[in-house]
């Protein structure tokens, strides 16, 4: 469905425990041009329902990170509106690389968002311990980022995002720099976290497989300047296990998505 208009979008297909706790996102005619004349976004329409898991797929350099920064309020569009409702300030952002504070231990890094929010020492400790347990880093909490593997650093980065119990989780190719196996495992863990906590997730990725594996809905962006050129309801049932990646419905969905991407490349 090429063109500037996004198709009408319905509520998440599957009812989940805790659904509706997440924030809602709405972008209307968003236009972002950088000094120097690069137009990154040109009339982006996007709506994300509360508790929905949406993957953003698009060619490299098309404006995905720009879009995510706009949603996070770190940047402003020249035209159009970006609305985030129901987040109550509980927004978290995970970058492609861990970007931890190297002078703080893992625990200190995970506590940072709470510290900046003025949360006291005791509750901070507790929340950090819980977040670290969720990503399986409890044993490494006293270590420094320089002493961790890439996968562990990314887990710490994820724990830092989860510690504020976000209503909206923005992830910008978070596992792209990791090896295939670690990436798959972290995908599964992220999916579990989302299923249990019901926050809204906006997940940027280059990988068709990752998008289909994780998301309820995949939104496809065109080459720069980015517009929404299509979208796909994934609707895969069941748990996210490694075996899912080899099933016929999974591969079917990936194929349909690929066709859509190629269409976006030409159109």
């Amino acid at each position: 469905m090429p063109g500037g208009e996004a198709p009408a979008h319905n509520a998440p297909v599957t009812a989940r425990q805790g659904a509706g706790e997440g924030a809602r996102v709405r972008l209307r005619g968003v236009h972002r041009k950088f000094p120097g004349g690069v137009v990154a976004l040109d009339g982006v329409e996007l709506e994300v329902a509360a508790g929905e898991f949406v993957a953003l797929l698009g060619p490299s350099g098309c404006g995905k990170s720009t879009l995510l920064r706009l949603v996070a309020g770190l940047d402003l569009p020249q035209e159009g509106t970006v609305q985030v409702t129901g987040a109550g300030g509980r927004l978290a952002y995970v970058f492609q690389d861990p970007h931890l504070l190297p002078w703080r231990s893992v625990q200190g890094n995970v506590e940072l968002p709470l510290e900046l929010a003025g949360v006291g020492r005791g509750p901070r400790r507790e929340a950090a311990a819980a977040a670290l347990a969720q990503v399986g880093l409890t044993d490494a909490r006293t270590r420094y980022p320089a002493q961790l593997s890439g996968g562990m650093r990314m887990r710490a980065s994820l724990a830092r995002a989860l510690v504020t119990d976000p209503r909206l989780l923005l992830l910008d190719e978070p596992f792209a720099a990791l090896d295939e196996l670690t990436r798959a495992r972290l995908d599964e863990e992220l999916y579990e976290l989302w299923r249990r906590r019901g926050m809204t997730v906006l997940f940027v990725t280059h990988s068709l497989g990752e998008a289909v594996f994780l998301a309820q809905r995949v939104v496809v962006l065109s080459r720069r300047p980015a517009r929404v050129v299509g979208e796909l309801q994934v609707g895969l049932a069941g748990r996210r296990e490694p075996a899912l990646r080899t099933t016929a419905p999974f591969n079917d969905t990936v194929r349909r998505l690929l066709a859509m991407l190629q269409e976006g490349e030409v159109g």
Partner: protein
Amino acid sequence: MRAALRAALPPLVAFAAGNALWEAAVRLLEVPIYLLPPPSRIAAALVTHAATLGGGVLLTGQAALAGFALAGVLGVAAGVVIASARWVERAVYPFTVLLQTVPLVAIAPLLVVWFGYGVRPVAVAAFIVAVFPVIVNTVTGLRSVDPHLVDLFRLYGAGFWAQLGKLRLPAALPNVFAGLKVAAGLAVIGAVVGEFVASYAGEQAGLGMLALTYARESHTDRLFAAVGLASLLGLALFAAVGGAARVTLRHWHASEQERP
């Protein structure tokens, strides 16, 4: 312990060999003592005039340390102000470069006019030459903060002070230490040069003053002793800063991490 010994051995051997060569050359060529005394004479002068020279070390050390501390505190503060906004940088930065180019010997008499004779103008002289590398390195450090981390702090609503205290200053620390290392040696040089102009000869004389007096009296062996002590003073201050840097940065910065 063994590793420390092995690290200390080569410079010690080189030092001993250099001195032996010097001693032999001076004696064989019969160089006059007022031109170039042999190391044995310098060592003897060091012992004979231990009290005077020791007092000099204390006095110069005091002034250099005061100037260095001032340069550390004010240099970092100036760096923070300069890095806070582009227009401040454009307005102020060119003038800090003047600190670097001002001829200290020429300005020292002015320091006497302002601060009188004694340790204070000497400390200020040390400050003037030591502060520039601290400012420059602090600004560089504050400017090279990871923009993603700035985004993160903004996302979590961190204000100017939280960003400064929890992000920018810690991130700038490796650069600040680099600046302080350069400043350590410069502070001693500044103090010695300051003393040339701003102290009396007498009971309470610093190493610079002593060096000047010994030179006039052609006591070249004592002059060498005073100069050697001044160098050692700079070395000690440098080593202290290096130690502080190691303790502070060893967990996280590549510059201070042990490589197996």
